[in-house]
């Protein structure tokens, strides 16, 4: 019961430096990102790292790296940073699908076009699912059917992905015959 043929489903590639840019910023929701840059080009890296026991973010190796305590923290600072940026910047994003599009939407609000933003999916394939009935976001969904945190409906997780909401669409599976809910399958990890 999957609809894998949806054409709007984004396709991601691995990240490579766009040499037509003058400055390069990579943002990642994990310290374990992969990015190949020519040795003569500088890349600034922003990443999310778990704070240590005293709540500090581990110090970064170089001045071109900066750690943040959460994806939200990183995106808030990115919003501020892009407001002061100049033309010529390229933005590379590595992380879970929700993070990729949260960053994309922040960058687009700052005026960046999709030719200036590059995305690579990494980490968990778990989905953020938007309930079309109550608009609640359900995070970390790994099954084909999920019970909505907001309204309790049994949602079928469609492959229909909203770039605006950075989330997959969840629709009530037993709308025709109430209570007829097939067993959920583990689909993403």
């Amino acid at each position: 019961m999957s609809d894998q043929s949806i054409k709007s489903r984004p396709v991601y590639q691995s990240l490579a430096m766009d040499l037509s840019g003058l400055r390069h910023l990579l943002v990642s929701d994990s310290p374990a990102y992969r990015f190949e840059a020519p040795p003569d080009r500088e890349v600034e890296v922003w990443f999310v790292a778990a704070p240590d026991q005293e709540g500090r973010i581990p110090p970064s190796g170089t001045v071109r790296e900066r750690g943040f305590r959460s994806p939200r923290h990183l995106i808030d600072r990115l919003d501020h940073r892009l407001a002061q940026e100049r033309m010529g910047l390229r933005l590379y994003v590595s992380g879970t699908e929700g993070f990729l599009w949260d960053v994309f939407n922040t960058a687009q609000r700052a005026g960046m076009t999709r030719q200036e933003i590059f995305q690579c999916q990494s980490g968990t394939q778990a989905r953020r699912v938007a309930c079309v009935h109550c608009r609640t976001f359900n995070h970390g969904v790994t099954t084909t059917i999920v019970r909505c945190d907001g309204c309790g409906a049994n949602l079928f997780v469609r492959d229909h992905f909203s770039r605006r909401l950075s989330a997959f669409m969840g629709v009530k599976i037993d709308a025709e015959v109430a209570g007829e809910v097939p067993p959920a399958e583990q689909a993403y990890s």
Partner: protein
Amino acid sequence: MILDGKLSARVAEIDLLNPTLKRFRFVPENGGAFPTSPPGAHVLVTLQGPDRVWQNAYSLVTPPDQRDHYAIIVRRVPDSRGGSHFLHDRLKTGDAVALSAPASLFPIASLARKHILIAGGIGLTPFLSYRPVLALRGAAYELHQFCAPDEVETFRALIGADAAGVHVHGVGRGERPDLAALLADQPLGTHVYTCGPQGLMDAVEETARGLGWTPHAIHRESFGGDKGGVPFMVTLARSGRSIAVGASQTLLEALEGEGIEAPCLCRGGACGVCLLPLVEGIPDHRDHVLSEAEKAEGRLIATCVSRARSGTLVLDF
């Protein structure tokens, strides 16, 4: 909305702006109102000369919501293909003209955070319809007009001198506009639009790319250019007719001259409406629509600008 057919109009007023520039105001033939035009729109003006017909594209300089009249500004070019001479020397107040519905292939980018408009000479015209729209949206913009020193006053008067963000630069012979100074250090989300001589538009594009701007942020209007060339023959495979294309005539004009209704919209090689299948012959592609691969394949030709490298072209039309 796509409008078919022509708008019947009459010349209401002709203003001489300087020795080579005239503004023509057209009003609807039977009163009423013209359609609302998008910013950056152009119309095709059909000119009925004594022994030939021109259909030339001109940008509207009236604001988009101006519906009681349209206006265009035309420069009289010394070695034109005749259209600008006809407009300047023959067309009189009260004459009837046919206009196409306005179309825009040069729209304002809605997601841009700032707009830089760079015009060369009479390439200013599309920006005259941009300005009221940008002002209404409260958008950040700069307009840079480059022209010969003796035309600075004409253009200042036309734009409304001393408006905020408007700069008219006189460029003497042998001088080059400092485009890098205009485009460097611009905020993220800036888009540049350029209209004017090919050399200026190429320089704007090259400068912007050098500063790390992507093609999405660079917009150019593709009117004019060199449309003439070596005469050639075109054969229409379906009817077997052979038609001569003269040196100062486009393939499209030659077809129209024979009363053949060939498709067209921008007449500048930008929109792709006029593409016709090519059966035989070697085309000289001059359009901005076909990809390099399609051009190499040689199976389509943009009749409004492209010509022939071989003596004859055969079209499936």
